[in-house]
């Protein structure tokens, strides 16, 4: 199971992405569990909203952080997220 570069990505309806004030970080919540996210992972997942494909996520983040060459890191993370069931593609 790997990311299809053509398709848009949705966040899983069986998980919740949420900012935690007490922890000052984003977390993923699911039955009996919680994953704490670093800033870059959270930025990627926030764009998994059903309107962006992988290339569009890369473009948005490279623009936002005024940098380039993020494609490999982002694709690797998206594959991990897919395998963990945090995101899905239609």
């Amino acid at each position, binding site marked *: 199971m790997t990311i299809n570069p053509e398709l848009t990505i949705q966040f899983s309806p*069986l998980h919740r992405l949420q900012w935690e004030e007490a922890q000052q970080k984003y977390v993923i*919540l699911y039955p009996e569990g919680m994953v704490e996210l670093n800033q870059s992972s959270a930025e990627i997942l926030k764009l998994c909203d059903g309107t962006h494909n992988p290339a569009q996520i890369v473009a948005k983040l490279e623009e936002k952080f005024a940098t380039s060459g993020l494609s490999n890191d982002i694709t690797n993370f998206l594959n991990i997220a897919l395998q963990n*069931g945090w995101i899905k593609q239609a």
Partner: protein
Amino acid sequence: MAGSNKLNITPPRWLLAELSYKCPLQCPYCSNPLDYAKYPDELGTEDWKRVLSQARKMGAVQLGFSGGEPLTRQDLSELVRHARELGYYSNLITSGYGLTEDKIVELKQAGLDHIQVSIQASTQELNDHIAGTATYQHKQEVAKLVKKHGYPMVLCVVIHRQNIHQMPEILAMAENLGADYLELANTQYYGWAHLNRDALLPTREQFVEAEEIAQAFKEKVAGKMKIYYVVPDFYEDRPKACMNGWGTTFLTIAPDGTALPCHSARELPGLDCPNVKDFSIEQIWNESKTFNFFRGTEWMQEPCKSCDEKGKDFGGCRCQAFLFNGDMYSTDPVCSKSPERHRIDEAIASARELALSGQEKPLIFRNSKNSRQY
């Protein structure tokens, strides 16, 4: 007070709200205290809302509505709505008894995140025997309705000697019902399970066989279903990191408002567990004698004190140390380094002898009549 180190207090992350000790089921492995009938009082709606708000403010985010049977509370939807507004991820831990489709929809609209349905066995006969109530058919229906209404479906099966032989059928049942998560919870021997241990503890051979079957299934359904496997610590040689360490992560509130570091802590002597009617969650968590009792490592005895694994398992479970050794400061007897390990081995041998001889003891069911004996 055994140990206190205020600098190292981490905030609670998990709140277990035991809304009521009332339960239509009578499972003989229930983790509620044996003498629960002594505590019939239940917090009111406003008390629970205040508890939820205070714990959330400190950083609690995972919330379990449990019991007894939480559906016995008429204000459940109101509490769920309050929890959602506060940003909790809320879990209803239920037998499914009394759960209708209308209620499932109502709870979803109130903001409930998931429902964990317990099933006692893969066959109606055994399920209804263990539950002490005819519930099997209804539980199957509830599991399907939970799925139909878009909740992650978490199926929980407590494993013990009476049902461990059904492992293949239990796994097939979970697959047929479309469970997203399957919790295979090997019985932990506290409360009623401690009382019924001779009749519930599987033999090592049974446990090994069941674990192999569960492991193969886990690989087969990878990506479709997640399996939570709660290990039977009697067959380990190191204790579990109970509650992730005392007063570090977990907060249980009993139906009458008593605050506990774990749901069995009420059995420990001299803790003077505080009540949320008298203190705020912040006072209870940070300042109470109870929550500071086994924080850190100062309270430890040998062999824990000089053990290089004490930061990993925190000396194991205080309740288990008390139940077996009569000393809540001692090393969890599960540990092979504990001088009391023989007590666990004797418990295993005692249960094994009864299992192999076919002289099964009758189960003592968890109900008010039996509870009043304690």
